[in-house]
């Protein structure tokens, strides 16, 4: 936070030329800025052009991860049998993952996979929720890299556990040649299943999450940019349009909070389902 303020001050100091400072621009409008895909490729803070390029989305990811760890560190070290408010709230989240996602899907296997799936759920929730938090204002998962890593994690998990349990042949037979189907149908079914197991599942996991977060960010920025324009630049009756776009921004902020949780839920649920399918004897 201190760093941010320092950065703001220094920005004001260096912007002695024609351009306005950040604070000045915050309370004025130089026209309507349509949201664009460039929002997801902000300028590098350091390491420009290298694989270590660090921009504000990476920064937001680091902050989200630190917040998640700090919060659970704080609560876990003070955990009591009778929960306080904060512990109660976190326990509610953990119970939600266990009772609403993992147990209904995995049943007896719950105990083995609950830690992994809870971690996935909490990580995605925290990475998503940064999209509506002021100063961060972008979901860490709206850049495809992080969703890909999460999806790959699930991909490796279900392949590894499936092969470990059934052996490579057994796993492939189970998943690519589902029993109870006339042999001729395999001509059609097996290619689809190959696509499913090896490409579509991880790809859709990553794309669904990233696309939702990208769309959410674009919607919010559209509303906020329009509000800025109508509020500071428009004249007369057009100024009242700011109320409309602001209300829309408000609604979409609430919606984005919901979507952030929903996407974490969907991702975790699907991860549980894929793991379960890999472990099942026959399906």
């Amino acid at each position: 936070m201190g760093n941010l303020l320092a950065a703001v001050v220094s920005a004001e100091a260096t912007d002695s030329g024609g351009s306005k400072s950040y604070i000045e621009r915050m309370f004025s409008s130089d026209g309507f800025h349509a949201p664009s895909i460039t929002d997801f490729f902000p300028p590098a803070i350091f390491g420009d052009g290298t694989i270590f390029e660090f921009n504000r989305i990476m920064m937001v990811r680091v902050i989200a991860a630190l917040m998640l760890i700090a919060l659970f560190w704080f609560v876990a070290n003070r955990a009591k049998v009778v929960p306080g408010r904060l512990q109660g709230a976190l326990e509610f989240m953990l119970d939600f993952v266990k009772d609403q996602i993992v147990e209904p899907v995995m049943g007896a296997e719950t105990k083995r996979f609950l830690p992994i799936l809870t971690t996935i759920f909490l990580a995605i929730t925290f990475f998503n929720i940064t999209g509506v938090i002021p100063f961060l204002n972008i979901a860490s998962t709206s850049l495809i890299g992080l969703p890909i890593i999460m999806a790959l994690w699930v991909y490796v998990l279900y392949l590894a556990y499936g092969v470990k349990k059934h052996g490579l042949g057994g796993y492939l037979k189970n998943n690519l040649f589902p029993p109870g189907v006339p042999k001729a149908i395999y001509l059609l079914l097996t290619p689809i299943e190959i696509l499913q197991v090896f490409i579509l599942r991880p790809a859709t996991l990553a794309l669904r999450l990233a696309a939702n977060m990208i769309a959410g960010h674009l919607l919010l920025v559209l509303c906020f940019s329009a509000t800025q324009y109508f509020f500071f630049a428009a004249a007369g009756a057009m100024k009242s349009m700011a109320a409309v776009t602001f209300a829309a921004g408000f609604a979409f902020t609430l919606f984005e909070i919901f979507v952030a949780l929903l996407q974490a839920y969907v991702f975790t649920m699907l991860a549980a389902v894929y793991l379960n399918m890999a472990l099942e004897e026959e399906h």
Partner: protein
Amino acid sequence: MMLAQTLLLAEEAHTTEVEGADLILPAPYDLLWSIVIFAIIAVVFTRVFLPKIQKVLDERAELIQGGIEKAEKAQAEAAAALEEYTAQLTEARAEAARIREDARVEAAQILAEARRRAGTDAERIVETAQRQIDAERHQAVVSLRSEVGTLATDLASRIVGESLADDARQQRVIDAFLTELETTVKAEG
């Protein structure tokens, strides 16, 4: 067309010199309005929703705390009862041991008493028997004495009846007498 535009925009964003706050902060309008909305949400939550939820959470914590305390109390009571029971059991055992000891002592006393009484009885019986034997013996002596007198007289008269001058004869008479006496005693049993 769309792609070209996007690329152009991206190019533009990278070529325009961005520094300071813009590197780490979102677009100014993004920040401004999200702060406003976040503030509204924060106020509503902290004033309206969270107090209600916190009340429930606090109540639950109290309930659990109360339940735990109750359980602890019950446990303490149970422990106390167990202790009391154990103490009673120990006491009862001690009492039983004491009673057993008493009984043993009493039994020993009874036995000793019985033995003593039996001893006295035996002595008395022996004494009575002794006395009876004495009496009988006395009687026997008396009757013997009278019989021996008769016998002596008998013998004397026989000896006198024979010639008293001859020692050998005298001796023979005595022997004959004694033999006769012996046979009579044998015959009488």
